[in-house]
């Protein structure tokens, strides 16, 4: 037990949490934007895979990590827009189309990797690029904070900055405000001339960018290869983080970090003979409980309003 606490309160652990959370929070921000525009994106998982695979392959063949990043994010965005096209233009069911996209991504990435290097497991035999890790001057020398805040992958910093940007975007820009209006009352948005479809295209497109960044981090930051189904459900955890974070940017970040912490903990505790599966369940259980609690709170509020009314009435009689 003491050992466990020492693990949790170490700087190395906090740094690990940031590392492990990055591929959850980035797609979660994408999921958040889509959710706020009224289009639940359960294709995050597939979009991440597409970007992770594309990034590795392009960087391996061009010997340029940045081209890998751009190609991966671009392709994920295009597929996200394809999902939007099927939903908005061809009137396909959003959930089923997203499931199709996940299947397509899972199968398609393996198919292409197998085609190119005749290996279904991973691209370990390729030399692929990696996003840089950044040492921040001055900060890196501060004890405790230094090892946490400095030396992280570029995309981890992108995650932190992006949370702020998404918050500003959603609450302080016209486009973001319109996007929320569309998600909350499409008729109201339409009646003041906001193009509902365009906003939802935009939301799914942005969602693809963030999912793409998350995928790139997995294969070009966290590790330096692509492996089949390497997202391992992170796209779904990301969606859970959106719900657990009350569909707010900062809440989503915190929920994502919490999920990352559980994940990091399971790795650390694994060394201490605690089964990883048990610790890994925590975020899912937390989300499930959060769903129930949220619903109960909503209901209780309504009951309270009714009760309050009755009391007032009783008092007046």
């Amino acid at each position, binding site marked *: 037990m003491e050992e466990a606490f020492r693990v949790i309160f170490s700087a190395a652990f906090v740094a690990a949490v940031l590392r492990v959370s990055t591929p959850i929070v980035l797609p979660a921000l994408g999921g958040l934007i889509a959710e706020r525009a009224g289009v639940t994106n359960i294709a995050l998982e597939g979009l991440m895979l597409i970007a992770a695979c594309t990034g590795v392959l392009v960087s391996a063949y061009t010997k340029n990590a940045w081209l890998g990043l751009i190609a991966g994010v671009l392709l994920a965005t295009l597929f996200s827009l394809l999902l939007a096209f099927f939903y908005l233009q061809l009137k396909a069911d959003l959930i089923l189309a997203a499931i199709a996209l996940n299947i397509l991504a899972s199968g398609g990435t393996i198919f292409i990797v197998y085609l190119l290097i005749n290996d279904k497991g991973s691209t370990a035999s390729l030399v692929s690029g990696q996003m840089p890790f950044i040492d921040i001057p001055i900060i890196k020398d501060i004890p405790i904070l230094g090892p946490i805040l400095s030396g992280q992958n570029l995309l981890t910093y992108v995650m932190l900055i992006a949370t702020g940007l998404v918050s500003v975007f959603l609450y302080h820009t*016209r486009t973001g405000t319109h996007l929320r209006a569309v998600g909350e009352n499409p008729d*109201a948005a339409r*009646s003041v001339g*906001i193009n509902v479809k365009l906003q939802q295209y935009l939301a799914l497109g942005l969602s693809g960018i963030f999912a793409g960044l998350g995928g790139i981090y997995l294969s070009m930051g966290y590790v330096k290869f692509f492996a089949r189904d390497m997202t391992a459900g992170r796209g779904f955890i990301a969606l859970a983080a959106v719900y657990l974070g009350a569909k707010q940017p900062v809440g989503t970040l915190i929920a994502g970090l919490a999920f990352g912490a559980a994940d990091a903990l399971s790795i650390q505790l694994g060394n201490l003979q605690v089964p990883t599966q048990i610790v890994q369940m925590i975020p899912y259980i937390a989300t499930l409980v959060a769903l129930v609690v949220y619903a109960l709170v909503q209901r209780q509020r309504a009951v309270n309003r009714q009760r309050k009314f009755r009391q007032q009435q009783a008092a007046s009689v």
Partner: protein
Amino acid sequence: MAESLIEMRNITKIYPNGVRADNDVTFEVRKGEIHALVGENGAGKSTLMKILYGLERPSAGQIVLRGQPVTINTPQEAIALGIGMVHQNFMLVPSFTIAENIVLGTEPVKGGLIDRKTAGDRVRQLASHYGLAIDPDAVVDAVPVGMRQRVEILKALYRGADVLILDEPTAVLTPQETAELFAAIKQLVIDGKTVIFISHKLREVMQISDRVSVMRDAKMVGTIDTKDASEHLLARMMVGREVFLQIAKPPAQRGKVMLQVRDLEYVSEAGVDILKRISFNVYAGEILGIAGVEGNGQTELVEVLTGLRPSIGGKITLDGEDITNHSPRETRQAGIAHIPEDRLTNGAAVTASISDNLIVDRYAKEPYTKGGLLKLSAIKQLSDQLIEQYAIRTPDGSVDAGALSGGNMQKVVVARELSSNPKLLIAAQPTRGVDIGATEFMYEQLVKERNAGIAILLVSADLAEVMSLSDRLAVMKDGQLTAIFPSAKGLTEEEVGAYMLGLKQQTQLEIEKNW
């Protein structure tokens, strides 16, 4: 002769499903007038206004604005032309503040970000200029209906509207709010705005408008100056016949108390007090009518009685059995049949077969279910019999209900509810949106059931209808019964109207006497 601002010429609108909502309608609005557009539900007035506001495109016809022919394809184009619309169901984003809602789509921007301060200032200024009291920083979800409507009006004005279309603006308002609204409308006209006022409340139309156009059956019946009109004349134009249907019905053979309601209370989930200690009886063999302006709790009353909403106080007894807060199935089993207000969304499943629609209240009972399995032969026998008896126009019961015309769908609902041999029939707005033939069918059925000794609770916003059908008449206002008349005979519309509008109210003693 004032100049003509808007001319809609020979407008026809045919929907893809073949419904002709507007048929060669010509409509003209002059600058600076309050022009009322009246007609029954489904007469085509809303569609006409949607065309003007760019929400629908006409199948044929032309719009001329300030002498120039224009095409209006989207609401943005309408807004750009100075046309604003306040919809009946408000187009507001609940979690946004009032200011955010008003400037939505045209937010002032500073340095790339929304300038909330400027937005708030502009909204405040606009509101005070027109004397429309609002709190720009309040969240829409938390403000009363009347304020939401003022927000909608300000939204249109903020966008520079010269012409305001108000779609049934008073349907959801209290009398005070209505009075405030009318004052605001008059102020708008003084300011040089033009107002189109859609309504089917003739009293209000007489009170507020300069001219009135009447629509009926997708056609324009005519336009007259309000000073030359009377409610009676307008009503005749709207309906195309004398308003008071002569319904032949023998004197009521009133039996025992069938439904007894005492101190019934309902508070909505939003904490709004909807039903305030309502008490009344319905006797076997009589029709008790409940008159009232829509939105005074009638819908909730019916839903509480039928188990669709929980009451928070009071007692409902049917034929001596306490059915307070019973489930819909239990209330049906106790003997309540219900012709719902919104028959297409609640009363029928359009993607299910007619037979399936006919058995929803009894599928689990013998002979329709035997030994845990549905008995298809019994179901078919029932549906064949009801199709025959009610002359439902369909080859057989296996056809989807959605393939029926509106009138036939209505018959499916009526056939099911009446064939359940109820003790009490609740009919909510039974003739809304149906034509004269279907209306007469419905009246005949109600009177027939009443003569057969069934208790009938008729809830209707159509004053003429409820007055001529009912044996006894109650008036509902703000969630209370403000009057119960022992006989509907000899009452005048004016008298009942005074109670509906809250100008008069019976004493508690008078009401209790007539429970």
